[in-house]
């Protein structure tokens, strides 16, 4: 039923998608509850409009856009290398993975390969970011069902990953460590020992989490058979990542379309059966261990060599050359001011972010700036399934389901 606007109201002032849906039948005695955008457990600035029957959620309408930053548009006015810091800030819980996605897409446009050492280091940083993101998710998931302490325990471990970020890039969160054509720089010497200690000590910490939460009867009651979604529905909603794997579909970009030498490593893709919150939880907990396995293998088989492509279209000439060669100096200057120009064309490159398939679709018109960048954000697609998952569940479950989708609003809105 089309809604009639109050006289004098411009249509543009109404929130699209919210006020344009069919009118809610209030005859059934439902209460409309506005949850968010300022609410403790909407994980940022998600706004949900709920029709509550008692505490049962009859309908849930997510309203997004409160964190809209226009990153995709901003890409169009920046050179390729300048886009990298923007990608950091989209899914701010896994910045290196966003960097990686954009860098891989741009490299495919350019038709260049990065050295094996850079690929391995990229994998290490990406998997550490995945672990960090999952640790944060673990804490907030426990928090969402009312357990306040696991949060600080998982943040204790995440802190060490941020320390590694700081060690290699000087920045703790928005590292911009992975660049088009390779890395910001090679890792310092003490990186190996610190990363190895993370690999060695984390399994024990994860065991501790499992003792605290996985076997807890209250947690199981709160999550078993709650917010379940079938494999078919999950696929139809375009869900990816642990949310899809929790429903039993073993889809992981790292296995399906290996990038950055992921096919060199031996790891498993954990899948669930029921597709409920608990299965998604178990998937992520297992992924923590699998990621540690990958980091371990990458660290121990790390080849030596350069970490940047030798291709002079992208890589700056080395310092000593700049000192002696005028051409090199000019090239360095041009690279710094104008950047490189990929050939005309378009490319879609997906990577597996902690939340699912993160895809970068870049259209190049041959200039030094992308003509258009479209990001396929996993959080956005996963969030669309929320109304389906919470229909008929309780208000308390809604919070747990949001936590189990593990959305990052920066990723949803971009």
């Amino acid at each position, binding site marked *: 039923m089309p809604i009639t606007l109050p006289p004098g109201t411009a249509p543009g002032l109404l929130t699209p998608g919210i006020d344009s849906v069919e009118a809610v039948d209030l005859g059934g005695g439902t209460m409309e509850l506005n949850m968010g955008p300022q609410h403790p457990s909407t994980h940022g600035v998600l706004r949900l409009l709920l029709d509550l029957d008692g505490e049962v959620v009859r309908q849930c309408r997510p309203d997004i856009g409160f964190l809209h930053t226009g990153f995709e548009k901003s890409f169009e006015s920046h050179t390729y290398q300048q886009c990298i810091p923007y990608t950091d800030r989209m899914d701010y819980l896994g910045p290196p993975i966003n960097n990686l996605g954009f860098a891989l897409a741009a490299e495919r446009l350019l038709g260049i390969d990065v050295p094996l050492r850079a690929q391995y280091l990229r994998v290490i940083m990406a998997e550490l970011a995945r672990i960090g993101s999952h640790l944060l998710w673990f804490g907030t998931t426990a928090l969402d069902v009312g357990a306040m302490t696991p949060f600080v325990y998982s943040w204790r471990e995440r802190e060490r990953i941020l320390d590694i970020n700081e060690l290699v890039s000087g920045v703790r969160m928005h590292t911009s460590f992975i660049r088009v054509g390779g890395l910001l720089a090679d890792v310092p010497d003490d990186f190996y020992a610190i990363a190895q200690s993370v690999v060695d000590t984390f399994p024990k910490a994860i065991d501790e989490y499992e003792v605290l939460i996985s076997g807890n009867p209250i947690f199981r009651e*709160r999550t078993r058979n709650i917010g379940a979604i079938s494999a078919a529905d999950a696929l139809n909603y375009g869900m990816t990542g642990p949310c899809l794997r929790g429903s039993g579909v073993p889809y992981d970009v790292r296995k399906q379309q290996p990038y950055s030498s992921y096919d060199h490593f031996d790891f498993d893709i954990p899948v669930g059966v029921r597709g409920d919150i608990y299965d998604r939880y178990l998937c992520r907990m297992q992924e923590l261990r699998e990621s540690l396995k990958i980091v371990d293998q990458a660290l121990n088989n790390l080849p030596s060599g350069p970490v940047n492509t030798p291709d002079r279209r992208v890589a700056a000439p080395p310092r000593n050359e700049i000192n002696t060669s005028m051409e090199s100096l000019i090239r360095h200057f041009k690279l710094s001011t104008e950047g490189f120009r990929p050939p005309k064309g378009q490319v879609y490159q997906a990577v597996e972010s902690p939340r699912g398939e993160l895809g970068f679709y870049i259209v190049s018109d041959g200039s030094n700036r992308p003509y258009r960048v479209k990001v396929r954000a996993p959080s956005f697609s996963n969030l669309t399934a929320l109304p389906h998952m919470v229909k008929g569940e309780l208000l308390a*479950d*809604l919070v747990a389901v949001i936590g189990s989708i593990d959305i990052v609003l920066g990723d949803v809105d971009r």
Partner: protein
Amino acid sequence: MKASQYLLDSGLRVGNGVAADPVLVFAVKAAIVVLGLTLAAAFLTWAERKVAGRIQLRYGPNRVGPYGLFQPIADVLKLLFKENLAPATRDKLLFLVGPSLAVGTAILAFAVIPLSAVNHGIGAGYDLHWDISHLNIGLLFILAVTSLGAYSIFLGGWSANSKYSLLGGLRSTAQLISYEMAVSFSLIGVVILTGSLDLEKIVTQQNHAWFVVMQPLAFLLYFTGALAETNRAPFDLPEAEQELVAGYHTEYSSLRFGLYFLGEYVNVITVCAIATTLFLGGWLPIVPFLSFIPGVLWFIGKVAVLILVVMWIRWTLPRLRYDRLMSLGWKVLLPLGLLNIVITGAVVAFQAA
């Protein structure tokens, strides 16, 4: 006949000789308990944060005063000076009644809890009871008063005219109805054993063995139910932060919020004090040769240990879901309470026969 004399003659008070306290003694006792409870509750917030800190790998408050001990004072001052915001659409009377009831009922229940053994024949020949008012139906009084506490949350949640508050208030009402029964039933075992509702008598009869030994099930039932009644985690549904923002006190600020906060902590003390009195031998020492330590200290010590357990639980467990809480109350605690009554009754009857 004077009213006080009437109360004495009608048998509300028991005791040897002159039963009633002189007004001055009564007032001093009341002042000590009210001030003591308020202060204790304030410092419990400090203790809770310290305990939480230790559990969560951090220090807790340590800036204000030694070990952060003055933190509660700073907090109270902050609450006092905050603007007293209130929704324009509130129910003005009930919005005030809510927080007042929260503290009032919590403190009121403490009036009949004996802190130590009675001192016979002090001074002018009256007995000094270590409670404000010595009722021979003390247990009944406690049950009645703690039930009133639900009104504070319900009225507060309802009168604010906010949806989150309303949900919190509704949850609380349902929760209290479910758990009041279970708690009451868990106490009946003790009443059967002692044959009295007089709290002093209940404690003195635990001379040989605390009732937690004879009534372990009842103790667990009471403790679980009491946690639910005080809205402490894992039963803190009425104020579930992640779901209802702050539940029934979402719209409260300044001192009105402070009163709810105070009420919660006084409630915790009261509940633990009742558990100590009924199951842990009140002021009685653990072993007889330690009886040189004053009974009051024993009492306070036992209450403190119980409160620590309450805090420990809060920072460890996830929150139960609303419907699970209901089914736990009606389908688990209540039948177990009934079972406990039947078993206790049968044992007592066999022993008597």
